[in-house]
């Protein structure tokens, strides 16, 4: 059983988005971190890298597998969470408190394509 935080938006590829002043704060869901198991490496982009919606921006790695991360919205990376780069296990400890990147959105209307907590719960069957 994984938790789905209320008030966030979710992608079908299990990233979450929290919007603050035109900036999308992006992380992965509790469901995603549980599926991965012990996360040993977080591969992040550089600040100023630009991504299209649903483009691969990084990856999580566990001992056994790697899982690509997809950008839920188009935009430019304005900040990378160096704490999760140094301590990947933080994502396991609390997937919602530990964001991965912040993106300045190019088109806020793309948020309409994301799922709310209720729809995401349905997607993961909880």
């Amino acid at each position, binding site marked *: 059983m994984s938790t789905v935080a209320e008030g966030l938006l979710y992608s079908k590829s299990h990233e979450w988005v929290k919007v603050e002043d035109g900036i999308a704060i992006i992380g992965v869901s509790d469901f995603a971190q549980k599926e991965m*198991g012990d996360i*040993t490496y977080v*591969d992040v982009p550089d600040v100023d890298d630009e991504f299209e919606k649903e483009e*691969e921006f990084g990856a999580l790695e566990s001992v056994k597998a*790697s899982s690509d991360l997809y950008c839920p919205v188009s935009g430019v990376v304005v900040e990378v969470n160096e704490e999760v780069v140094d301590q990947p296990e933080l994502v396991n400890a609390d997937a919602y408190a530990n964001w991965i990147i912040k993106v300045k959105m190019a088109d806020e209307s793309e948020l309409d394509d994301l799922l709310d907590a209720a729809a995401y719960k349905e997607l993961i069957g909880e």
Partner: protein
Amino acid sequence: MENEVMKQTCLYDNHVALGAKMSPFAGFIMPIQYSGITEEHLAVRQHVGMFDVSHMGEVFISGPDAERFVNHIFTNEIRGYEAGKILYGMMLYADGGVVDDLLVYREAEPNHFLLVVNASNIDKDYAWMKEQSEGFDVEIDNQSDQWGQIAVQGPKAEDVVVELLHHDDEIRNLGFYEYFRADGLIISRTGYTGEDGFEIYASVDVTKRLWDAFLTAGVTPCGLGCRDTLRFEAGLPLYGDELSADISPIMAGLGMFCKLDKEEFIGKDALVSQKNHGTPKKLVGIEVFDRAIPRAGYPVELEDGTEVGVVTTGYHSISLDKSICFALVDTSCSSLDTPLYVRIRRKVFPGKVVKKRFYQTNYKK
């Protein structure tokens, strides 16, 4: 694959009861992990863990020509090896490609051998042996479904095996790659982890009882996830990744298990030629100077971007805290310390060629 009927080992219910994450492997539904790969890996390195390896194949060969036949299909030299000894080696195609890598047990009774083969290759191997046996007076008996097998591995393996199976002197005096039979069991000082340990072959019913007894004795149940991280660190190949119909033992650096001074064996001529003329590719170890993980299939490059090979297995090593991999690369860039680069997703990471035995193994002397 999804529609293929997956076989279960005799310990399937035990794994499910323990809450293991189950996944298909080699035609079997197998436990990948219980508590977690890292925890299980460290249990084997520091204490003792056990693996259900009942999926492995057991083929018994007997008959007047058994010794000559086994020596014909096997790369290592079994002549002069006494009863109770075990040899590692390969069965090869005529072109030097590998049918399988396996263990050969020489039984006490003359001209009796047990061949232990990879689960994924049981049917192929059995068919291959039958095909090659024409003209030899041998009986080839595939008993894979009748045997369970538990691998008990780690520095405390000897104590716990003695505690449960008794036969104190026989177990404690057993050398690496030796075995004995007792009470219907085959007790073998072998393994696939780089640690001291035992592989215990038993009937299906006894295997279930042994598993529970080891569990009660405090042995950590371990899945195939850490079996792979452990064997990889110890520099041991996995058929399909580091050995295959396309990757010969010479390419894989396992020439020491192929006795080219033997009178004959299938594939010998090809290996002699490979040894004399070299092979275009060689298997190497690579250390990547980053936490990024080189996974199977990732390209290996030179500084200028020329692709020179591919990763076969890679991890961020649990015991060594380094990102390391096996890779099959052009022989021209296979010598120690050669700078090589691994392309991991969008980036290229520098590294260098290192010895394949990444971890200092702790076998019984």
